[in-house]
C-alpha cells in the first residue's frame, strides 16, 4: 500500500481545535428559542420522608413555570426493570421523584422550571420541605460486621465474583517462612469531570424528543428514556457529540436526564437541566472499601498463600460490585488462595464505576502487601515479582492471549534507574529530604462487547463511518478514524467518523477500556465488508480492469482498488459509486467477539510503575518527583492519545494516593467537601516528571485489532508504587489513602 497505515501514527485529536477554542458545543450548550431551565432541589436529610412540600413562594416569582415533585409528576413506568439501564447492578434502580421517601442525602426531590437558570436556582431556595427524619447510617468502618455477599445479576457477567478458594490457605499461611499482612482503607471518591452533568431536551411534538445529554452511552440513555416514559425508541434521539470527561460517571443515565425529559414532555417545551458542582456529589461515586491481606512465601521467594478480603459500601437499593480481590491470583501463582468480597448496604446512593474500578482499589492492597513481603524476604521488590511471574492466569489456568509484563519490568526499570536503589528503607537522601523508590504491577482485563458499525463510500469516493459511541475525551474520534482509514487504505482526510448519536449504529456504553476493541473491531469488520462489496461491484463494471481477480488479489490504496500484480490496473472508488448510479455503497455490520476462541484465554493489559518520592522527614511533606509507567497493551493505535491516557492515569494515581477523598460527616450522613476547592485533586505544582513507555506486544487473539484498552491501566499500578516508595523513603507503611503529611510525622 502506498498510503501509510494510520494505525500506529501519533495523530493529534481531530477535534482538538474546537475544544481548546471553545467552539465545541456540549450538552448544556444547545440553545433553542424559548428554552426553559430546570434546577434540582436536593434532599437536606439523609433518610426519612417528605411530610409537607410547599412551592408557593417559588411559583409566585414571575418567570417560574412549574415545580415538579413526587406529588405532581406524570405517571411513569411501573416496573423496576423499566428503570434498569445497561449498567444497572442487581437490585431496584433509583427512581427520581418516585414518592415521599428519602433514601440518601442529596436525593433529587423536585425540579424548579423557570425562564432562566439563575431564577430557577433562586426559586429552589424558596421551596419549603418538611421532613420526618429517621435514623440512618453511612459509616462503612462502623458497620463492617454486617457485611454480606453481593447479589448476583446480569451485570455480574462483566464483573466476575471472587475465584473459589484453592488449597488450604490457613494451614499454608501458618507454616510459611515469611508473611506480610495489611489493612487497607480507601474513602469515597467522586468522579468530578470538568463538564457538569447537563441535558437539553428538545420537545419535537407527538411524544418525540431530541436529547443532548452528557453521557457515556447514547443508546443506553435512549432505551432508558423510552422505557421510563413509554416512548417509542425511534422517537427518542440522544446526542452527545462532546463529553468533557466522565470517568464512569456517565455510564448510567443520571437524574438530570430523567428530569429534563419529564419536564419537556409535560410542558411540551425545550427544557435544560444542568447540575451544579455541589450536585455532582449527589449520585454515583467510588465506594469506600476496607481490605485485608495476608500473603506468605517460602524462603526462595515463591508465594505460597494469598488471602485478600474486601468489604465495600453499597446503597440500600442496589448491590454495586467491583472486581477488587480477583487480581492477585491473575498476577501471581500460589497453591493456596482465599479471596472474599462483601458489601455493606448503607444510606447512600449506589456507587458507580470510576476509572479503574476495583483495580485501583484492589491492586493497592495486593502490590503493597507484595512490597512488604519482599522486605521480609530481603529480596528486591522487582526481583520478587520476577520470581513469582505468572506465565498463565493462575486463577483460571488459562494462558494469556499475550503478556509482555516482563518487558514492562525491564524497560521501566531501565528508564527509571531502578538499579540505583539502595535496598534499605531510609537509606537514600537528598538534602533534607528522604528519597524513596517504589514499584508495583498493574493489570486490567481486555474486554470486548458486541457492536455495530456502518461504513459507506460516497459519491466523492470518501469513506463515511458511523457509530452511536461517545467520545468521552479519550480520543475515540481520532482513533476510530485511523482504524477506518486503514480498512480501505485511505488517507485520514478522506475519512469522516460520525458518532455520539443514538440514531447511529448500536454501540454499548463507553467504559471498561473496551471501546477500541468493541467499536474499533466493528468498524474494521464493516470496512472489510464494504471493501468486499466494492470489489464485487467493481468487477461487474464494464471493462473492469479487475477481470477474474479474487479479493485476495487486490489492494485498496489512495481511493483505488488495484491489482496487486498489475499496479496500473486500478479502479477508483468514486467510479464504482458512479457506476452505482451515484448511490453510496454501504455496509452495516454487527460484530461479535469471537467467543469460542476467546474463552480459552485470559486477556489483559499489564503495566509496571516505578516511582520516586521525596519526603521532608520533619514536616512529612511528600512529593512524587519522578515516575515511569511501562504498559503492555497490544497494538497502540495512536501513541499520542494513548500516552495522554496513561499520563492522565498517572496524575490520578498521585491524586488517589496523596490527595483525593470525599469527606463524609456521619453525624449528618452527608458529604462535606462538595466543591473543587476542598475536594483536592492535584494541581500543577503537585506534578513533576512523568514518563510513559509502551512495550511491544503482539496479540492475534484478543480482537481483530490486536489492541487492548488503555483507559484504566495507567491508574492500576502507580498508587501502590507511591505508597511503596514512601515506605522505602521513611520506613513507614501507610495503608490508608490518601496519605497525608501528618501520617509521616
Amino acid at each position, binding site marked *: 500500500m502506498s498510503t501509510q497505515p494510520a494505525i500506529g501514527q501519533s495523530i493529534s485529536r481531530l477535534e482538538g481545535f474546537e475544544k481548546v477554542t471553545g467552539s465545541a458545543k456540549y450538552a448544556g450548550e444547545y440553545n433553542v428559542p424559548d428554552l426553559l431551565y430546570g434546577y434540582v432541589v436536593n434532599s437536606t436529610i439523609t433518610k426519612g420522608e417528605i411530610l409537607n412540600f410547599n412551592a408557593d413562594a417559588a411559583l409566585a416569582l414571575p418567570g417560574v413555570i412549574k415545580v415538579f415533585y413526587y406529588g405532581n409528576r406524570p405517571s411513569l413506568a411501573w416496573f423496576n426493570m423499566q428503570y434498569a439501564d445497561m449498567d444497572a447492578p442487581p437490585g431496584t434502580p433509583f427512581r427520581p421523584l418516585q414518592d415521599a421517601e428519602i433514601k440518601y442525602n442529596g436525593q433529587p426531590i423536585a425540579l424548579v422550571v423557570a425562564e432562566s437558570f439563575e431564577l430557577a436556582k433562586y426559586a429552589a431556595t424558596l421551596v419549603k420541605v418538611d421532613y420526618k427524619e429517621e435514623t440512618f447510617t453511612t459509616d462503612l468502618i462502623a458497620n463492617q460486621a454486617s457485611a454480606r455477599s453481593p447479589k448476583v445479576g446480569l451485570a455480574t457477567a462483566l464483573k466476575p465474583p471472587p475465584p473459589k478458594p484453592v488449597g488450604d490457605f490457613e494451614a499454608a499461611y501458618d507454616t510459611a517462612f515469611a508473611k506480610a499482612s495489611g489493612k487497607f482503607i480507601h474513602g469515597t471518591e467522586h468522579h468530578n469531570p470538568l463538564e457538569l452533568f447537563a441535558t437539553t431536551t428538545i420537545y419535537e411534538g407527538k411524544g418525540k424528543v431530541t436529547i443532548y445529554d452528557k453521557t457515556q452511552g447514547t443508546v443506553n440513555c435512549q432505551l432508558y428514556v423510552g422505557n421510563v416514559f413509554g416512548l417509542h425508541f425511534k422517537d427518542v434521539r440522544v446526542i452527545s457529540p462532546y463529553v468533557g470527561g466522565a470517568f464512569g460517571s456517565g455510564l448510567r443515565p443520571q437524574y438530570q436526564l430523567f428530569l429534563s425529559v419529564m419536564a419537556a414532555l409535560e410542558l411540551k417545551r425545550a427544557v435544560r437541566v444542568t447540575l451544579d458542582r455541589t450536585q455532582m456529589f449527589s449520585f454515583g461515586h467510588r465506594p469506600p472499601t476496607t481490605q485485608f491481606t495476608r500473603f506468605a512465601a517460602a524462603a526462595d521467594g515463591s508465594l505460597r498463600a494469598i488471602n485478600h478480603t474486601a468489604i465495600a459500601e453499597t446503597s440500600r437499593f442496589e448491590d454495586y460490585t467491583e472486581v477488587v480481590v480477583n487480581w492477585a491470583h491473575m498476577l501471581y501463582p500460589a497453591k493456596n488462595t482465599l479471596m472474599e468480597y462483601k458489601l455493606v448496604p448503607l444510606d447512600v446512593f449506589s456507587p458507580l464505576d470510576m476509572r479503574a474500578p476495583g483495580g485501583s482499589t484492589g491492586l493497592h492492597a495486593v502490590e503493597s502487601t507484595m512490597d512488604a513481603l519482599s522486605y521480609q524476604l530481603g529480596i528486591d521488590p522487582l526481583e520478587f515479582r520476577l520470581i513469582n511471574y505468572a506465565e498463565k492466569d493462575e486463577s483460571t489456568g488459562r494462558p494469556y492471549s499475550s503478556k509482555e509484563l516482563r518487558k514492562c519490568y525491564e524497560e521501566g526499570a531501565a528508564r527509571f534507574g531502578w538499579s540505583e536503589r539502595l535496598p534499605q528503607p531510609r537509606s537514600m537522601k537528598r538534602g*533534607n*529530604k528522604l528519597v524513596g523508590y517504589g514499584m508495583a504491577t498493574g493489570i486490567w482485563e481486555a474486554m470486548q462487547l458486541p457492536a455495530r458499525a456502518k461504513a459507506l463510500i460516497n459519491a466523492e469516493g470518501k469513506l463515511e463511518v458511523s457509530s452511536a459511541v461517545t467520545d468521552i475525551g479519550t480520543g475515540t474520534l481520532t482513533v476510530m478514524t485511523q482504524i477506518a482509514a486503514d480498512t480501505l487504505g485511505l488517507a485520514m482526510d478522506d475519512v469522516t467518523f460520525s458518532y455520539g448519536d443514538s440514531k447511529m449504529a448500536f454501540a454499548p456504553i463507553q467504559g471498561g477500556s473496551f471501546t477500541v476493541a468493541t467499536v474499533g473491531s466493528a468498524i474494521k469488520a464493516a470496512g472489510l465488508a464494504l471493501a468486499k462489496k466494492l470489489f464485487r461491484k467493481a468487477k461487474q463494471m464494464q471493462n473492469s480492469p479487475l477481470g477474474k481477480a479474487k479479493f485476495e488479489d487486490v489492494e485498496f490504496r489512495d481511493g483505488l482498488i488495484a491489482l496487486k500484480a498489475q499496479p496500473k490496473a486500478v479502479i477508483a472508488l468514486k467510479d464504482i459509486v458512479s457506476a452505482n448510479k451515484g448511490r453510496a455503497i454501504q455496509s452495516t455490520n454487527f460484530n461479535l467477539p469471537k467467543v469460542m476462541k476467546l474463552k480459552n484465554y485470559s486477556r489483559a493489559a499489564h503495566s509496571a510503575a516505578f516511582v520516586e518520592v*521525596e519526603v521532608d522527614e*520533619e514536616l512529612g511533606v511528600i512529593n512524587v518527583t519522578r515516575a515511569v509507567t511501562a504498559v503492555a497493551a497490544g497494538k497502540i493505535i495512536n501513541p499520542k492519545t494513548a500516552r495522554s491516557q496513561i499520563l492522565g492515569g498517572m496524575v490520578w494515581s498521585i491524586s488517589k494516593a496523596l490527595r483525593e477523598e470525599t469527606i463524609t460527616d456521619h453525624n449528618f450522613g*452527608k458529604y*462535606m467537601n462538595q466543591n473543587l476547592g*476542598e475536594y483536592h485533586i*492535584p*494541581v500543577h505544582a503537585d506534578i*513533576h516528571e512523568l514518563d510513559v513507555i509502551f512495550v511491544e506486544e503482539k496479540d492475534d487473539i484478543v480482537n481483530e485489532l490486536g489492541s487492548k484498552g488503555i483507559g484504566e491501566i495507567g491508574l492500576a499500578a502507580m498508587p501502590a508504587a507511591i505508597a511503596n516508595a514512601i515506605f522505602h523513603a521513611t520506613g513507614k507503611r501507610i495503608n490508608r489513602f490518601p496519605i497525608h503529611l501528618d501520617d509521616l510525622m
Partner: protein
Amino acid sequence: MHNFRYKAATSVSDAVVEVNQSAEGQFVAGGTNVLDLMKYFVAKPEVLVDVNPLNSLPVVSEYKEGVRLSAFATNADTAYHPIIEKRYPLLSKAILAGASAQIRNMATNGGNLLQRTRCYYFYDVNTPCNKREPGTGCSAIRGYNRMMAIMGTSEHCIAVFPSDMCVALAALGAVVNTDGMQGKREIPFADFHRLPGDHPEKDNNLLAGELITGIDLPAEGFAEHYAYLKLRDRNSYAFALVSVAVVFRLDGDLISEARIALGGIAHKPWRVLDAELYLQGKSATVDHFAAAAEIILQGAKTFEFNSFKPELARRAIIRCCKMALSPDTQLPGAQPSA
C-alpha cells in the same frame, strides 16, 4: 443567587453612605469570596456596593517611614510590587503562598482581611453553624475538623481564619486604616481580627458599614531575615493546615528582635508576644526556637481530626525559624528539591 442591587461607589464617603442605607449592605471588591458566599446563599446582601472604582491610589506609596498599601489594589499587584519585594519580602511570599494566580489577580488587599472562614459547615446552609446563624450550634466540633483551630477556640466555634497575607501583616505589625459613619480609624493589626468567644459571627472589629481604605506597614520590613512556611494538603490552591511567618533582626549570633505569627490554627493570625520576648537576646539555635514554639503552643486544644496540629505547628515553627536565618538557602517544606 438571590436578586440584589448593585451600586458602583464614586468615593469612599459615597460607598460608606450607600452601604449604610441598607441593613443588608455589603462592599464588593475582587468578589473572590463574597460571590461564592452568595452562590451558596450564605451571604444575601440587599445591595452590593462596588468599591473597585476607588482604586485610583497607587498600589504602594511611601508613608511616614514605612509604606501604605492601597486597600483596593490586587494581591498580585502588591506581591509583585518592587518596593514590597525589596523591603517587605515576607509579605510578598505570604501573598504568593495563598490561593491561585487567578484569584490573586482579582482579590484585593482590603478584601483579603475580610474573607470568611472556609469551614465546610459555614458554607453548608443545611448544617448548624454559630458563625452563620448564631445559636444553632457548631457542627465542626463533633464533625470533620482537620482544618480547624487549636488555639483560642470557644465552645461556639472552632473555625480558622484562612488568609496567608494576614499572617505576614500580623508579623510585620501592620495598621489597618478605615473610614465609616463614625469617621476614620487606625486599627493595629493585632486588634483587627477577633477570637470567636460568644460571638463567632463577628470575624473582626470593624463597625457596621466601615470600609478598609489602606494598610500601613511600619519602617522595619525585616528584609534580611524572614521566612513564610505553609503546610497544606496540596502544593497550591489549598488552605494552610499550619503556616508560619518568622522575621528576625540579628545582632551577630544573637536575636535582637523576633516576630512569629501562625496561620491555620486560630480564628485570627496567632502571635504570642511572650515567645518573641523569650527569643530576644538569645542565640539563634534550634533549642531556643523549640522553646519559643512551646510557649506559642501552650494551651493548644485539639479535636478528633486535628490532633496532629500542635506537633506540626511546633516543627513548622522550628523549621521556619531556621529558614528565616538564611532565606536564600532554605527550601520551603512544600517544594521538592531543585
